[in-house]
């Protein structure tokens, strides 16, 4: 056993311990804090697995936005999530056995065929030149499996509709009740003035570099969303009403352009979501740029929650 491997074992044990802590912690607040740490550790695990694109996504979404969302939830539940009825011992035993069996099966099966590790990496690399992108992960997301990516944007928008649908009737079209985590004090305002310029730059850089290096529309969009939320929490910018035309347009502009490019593919490239060879790169960049913007706005509004008042306070 080499020293790095021993460190890795310790790291995995830490992850699992925190996962257990998340589930057994008495106070909901503790559980959520542990979960946020867990998200960041998982991001490191992804780096150990040589998947930098995923690590960025996990850090931004798993560690960042999800944590923010859950913290807001805990604040509203005011620690009174109730104990509920713990299931009886037979249920616990049955569930426990089932879960241990699943884990054991997975642990053995995932590595069961060491002699043949099937992979599409060669296929991706063979076609990478044709895809006009340098980052193989981006090529899968925006060229080879662009259809998944497109549908997933629709999933995001439907989730937002679902969140909005939980607003009371009388405040439909109103302002999301973004939970304020702290009083907007001078220090928070300072942060909200200092960080966004850097953050926005990083967000745009992530999307721009995503064509050739790790990064991309999701990661960039998430960073943009985080900056926007920070500015709203510090009350430097009001939370927009969801009926505003510009909000609606920002939400759909990315997917609309993506769909339009896809449909143009019918005419100019012979297939839906195919890019004409000479224009592939610019088209993908346009789609990604608008998607970054739309994803940022969608994620921000998802965290902001359903509308709960008509006017600005």
């Amino acid at each position, binding site marked *: 056993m080499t020293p790095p491997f021993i460190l890795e074992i310790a790291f995995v044990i830490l992850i699992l311990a925190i996962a257990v802590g998340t589930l057994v912690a008495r106070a909901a607040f503790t559980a959520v804090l542990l979960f946020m740490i867990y998200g960041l550790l998982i991001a490191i*695990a992804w780096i150990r697995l040589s998947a930098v694109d995923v690590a960025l996504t996990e850090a931004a979404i798993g560690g960042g936005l999800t944590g923010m969302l859950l913290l807001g939830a805990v604040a509203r539940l005011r620690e009174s999530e109730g104990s509920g009825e713990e299931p009886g011992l037979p249920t616990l035993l049955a569930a426990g056995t089932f879960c241990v069996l699943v884990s054991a099966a*997975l642990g053995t099966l995932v590595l069961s065929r060491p002699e043949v590790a099937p992979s599409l990496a060669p296929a991706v690399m063979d076609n990478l030149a044709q895809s006009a992108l340098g980052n193989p992960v981006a090529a899968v997301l925006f060229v080879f499996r662009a259809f998944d990516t497109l549908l997933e944007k629709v999933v995001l928008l439907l989730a937002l509709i679902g969140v909005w649908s939980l607003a009371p009737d009388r405040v439909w079209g109103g302002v999301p009740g973004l939970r304020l985590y702290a009083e907007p004090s001078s220090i928070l305002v300072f942060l909200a003035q200092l960080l966004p310029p850097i953050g926005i730059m990083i967000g745009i850089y992530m999307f721009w570099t995503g064509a050739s290096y790790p990064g991309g529309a*999701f990661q960039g969009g998430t960073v943009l969303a985080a900056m926007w939320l920070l500015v709203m929490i510090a009350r430097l910018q009001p939370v927009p009403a969801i009926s505003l035309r510009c909000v609606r347009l920002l939400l759909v502009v990315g997917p609309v352009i993506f769909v339009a490019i896809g449909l143009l593919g019918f005419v100019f490239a012979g297939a839906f979501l195919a890019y004409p060879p000479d224009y592939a790169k610019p088209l993908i960049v346009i789609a990604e740029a608008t998607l970054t913007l739309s994803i940022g706005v969608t994620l921000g509004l998802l965290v902001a929650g*359903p509308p709960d008042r008509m006017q600005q306070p």
Partner: protein
Amino acid sequence: MNSIALFAYCGAAMVGLGLFGLITKPQVLRKILAFNVLGTGVFLLFGVIARRGAAAGLHSDPVPQALVITGIVVAFSATTMAVVLLLRLYAETGEATIDSDDPPSTGTDGGR
């Protein structure tokens, strides 16, 4: 054992933990957390498979990576929707659990 196997076992254990929490925890918030632990476990297993598929000069098969990115975004959307439903339920009833045997909706529904 090597580091890939280690992460495989880690992912498998996370799946078990998450499943157990999702099934047995009565509080909805904990179920949501357990769902996220379960989800990251599944993604991590996919990452292990990607890492094993390192070929053609790449350290990791890019297809599973792309699928995991999509999966993370979908899981986040699911988490938001579940959280918002939970908060609405709490605002209406003061409860944050869903016990399984309350009689299904009575009275008010049906008419308008």
